[in-house]
């Protein structure tokens, strides 16, 4: 065992990388849930985004296209969920599960010819001066653009929910869809847009795993990241900045256990690998004491009956 091999600067830097997929998916799901919809299909949308992004990158050679297609792929799958829950008025829990099963099947079908390929690498931003700073430069200023996009998205969602009219309407729809409907807001349309935004974010998160974090395509490679993102929203009590905090926490645990595996700690590999999931459960237990923050209309079916 050699713990001195673990470099704290690199550890923190890889924490940011490990946190990005769940951060993106989590912030998207937060918007969906604030609109009063529980989409349990995050895992399915992430893995679809992962393969869509991977395929587009291999074909076009450009990771930028990859991420765009990943977002489109995730949003398309989310649109199916929106059709089911908003127009066909299906149960949201069952529809979310269906979306995950469907997405897993779809992605492994799409990806069967892409196993073992290596995507072109996504360039890291090289910020003059800042990237060269000792320690801080390695930790904060030596990443690809998606890492910053994730953080920017959190800020954007926070500001939009708190200060903008759109945010206010979205929250109204999530808290009391009947009242929002009575005020003349298009509840279904707003929710469909929120669901698609969530899908696009999950798609980006998935593509981040297949294009940057791993970077490779293997079946079922998101390995529960979508579910962790869902847990993240509960952990965050539906508040954007806490999603960031939670993502860093889970990213930290993931990176730490990987580093411990590499350092050859006496704990068996399997037990280290299960630690992120166990910690998710523990955190869920701690946070679930406070249920007051959940949007009041979360998971309820809206039907504008006269």
């Amino acid at each position: 065992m050699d713990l001195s091999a673990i470099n704290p600067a690199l550890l923190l830097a890889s924490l940011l990388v490990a946190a990005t997929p769940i951060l993106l998916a989590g912030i998207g799901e937060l918007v969906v849930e604030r609109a009063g919809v529980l989409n349990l299909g995050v895992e399915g949308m992430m893995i679809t985004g992962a393969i869509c992004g991977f395929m587009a990158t291999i074909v076009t050679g450009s990771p930028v296209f990859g991420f765009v297609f990943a977002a489109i792929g995730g949003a398309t799958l989310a649109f199916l969920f929106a059709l089911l829950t908003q127009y066909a008025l299906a149960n949201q829990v069952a529809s979310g599960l269906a979306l995950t099963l469907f997405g897993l099947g779809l992605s492994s079908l799409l990806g069967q010819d892409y196993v073992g390929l290596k995507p072109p690498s996504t360039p890291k931003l090289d910020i003059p001066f800042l990237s060269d700073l000792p320690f801080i430069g390695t930790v904060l200023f030596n990443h690809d653009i998606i890492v910053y996009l994730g953080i920017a998205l959190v800020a954007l969602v926070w500001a939009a929910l708190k200060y903008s009219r759109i945010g206010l309407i979205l929250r109204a729809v999530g808290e009391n869809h009947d009242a929002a409907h009575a005020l003349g807001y298009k509840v279904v349309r707003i929710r469909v847009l929120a669901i698609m935004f969530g899908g696009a974010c999950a798609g980006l998160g998935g593509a981040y795993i297949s294009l940057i974090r791993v970077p490779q395509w293997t079946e079922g490679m998101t390995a529960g990241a979508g579910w962790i993102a869902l847990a993240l929203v509960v952990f965050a009590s539906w508040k954007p900045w806490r999603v960031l905090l939670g993502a860093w926490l889970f990213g930290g645990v993931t990176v730490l256990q990987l580093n411990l595996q590499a350092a050859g700690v006496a704990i068996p590999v399997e037990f280290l690998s299960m630690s992120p999931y166990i910690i998710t459960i523990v955190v869920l237990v701690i946070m679930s004491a406070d249920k007051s923050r959940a949007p009041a209309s979360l998971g309820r079916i809206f039907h504008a009956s006269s």
Partner: protein
Amino acid sequence: MLKLEKRPQPSQTFAYLTPIFAIIITMIAGGLLFMLLGKNPFEAIRTIFWDPLFGEFAFYYRPQLLVKGGPLILIAIGLSLGFRAGIWNIGAEGQYIIGAICGAGVGLAFYPMEAWFIFPLMIIAGALGGWAWAMIPALLKVKFQTNEILVSLMLVYVAEQLLASMSLGLLKNPEGHGFPGSRNLKDYSSAFNDEIITGSGMHWGVITAFIAVIFAYILLNRHMLGFSIRLTGEAPRAAKFSSVNPTRLILFCLGMSGALAGLAGLFEVSGPAGQISIDFNTGYGFTAIIVAFLGRLHPIGILFAGLLMALTYIGGEIAQANLGLPAAAIQLFQGMLLFFLLAVDLLTNYRIKRVRKETV
């Protein structure tokens, strides 16, 4: 203009018809998918739905229907109890794995002793293992109101890691020349879940599944607890007033589904799979969710849905071998089925009405 109008009560007729609609739509959409993959859609659909039952080698495939249907039905019956009451155990895959580990562990502990009581002990251990694994989300939900969906699902990943650890460590076959995986229980007659009638596919797990169907039917239709489950799902407010104990219900539904999933795992590992290995589990725990919904959460419906889903598994394997249809296509096909089912379910709860455009 078309308008949806909520039915005062769900339509009985459509409750029976919608699964059939969903299957037909899935066949059409699946046919289109297979066409996109460059296969003849009619041949593919025939291979999946017809050949296993009536084709040339049907004598070989028909028993498989029970072998694959058994665990699906067993797990889905358990899940359906909870789903009816709005208690979402989606971690059946984990409970299935733990049941298999516990059951096989007990069996292997007695190796090489031959005795009649070993297999019954394994059954008990399997059920208890699944039950205990499901008790984690149940107790957390009861004590801390933790979301059982997320906890039960997280535990699937924990169980998979545990399975890897077991097949590489504690339960590894000492005479396995270093290969991962336990001793093969097929070579250990006291622990082997053999076919009861040779060549029929009927093993103890299938019998248990049929018993579970009957048990669930009686529970839901003739027993107070079953009534409480149905009441909680259909009219939660009424359930509150009529002194239904939610804690008891959560513990019962999750515990029962866990025990049944554990049993399914044990019967699978001691029979068709034969040994604990890293990937002996084939996702039955997740497919059973589709089975439960396709069967309308009704025991008899689940029986048919389980057999149908087993058919797609077998047909999928044949299509894979004969037509080169990718395995993932079948997985997608099964996912589509649930999708379409949920969509056409609209007809059960709502009535589509043509209305004239009103002047505003």
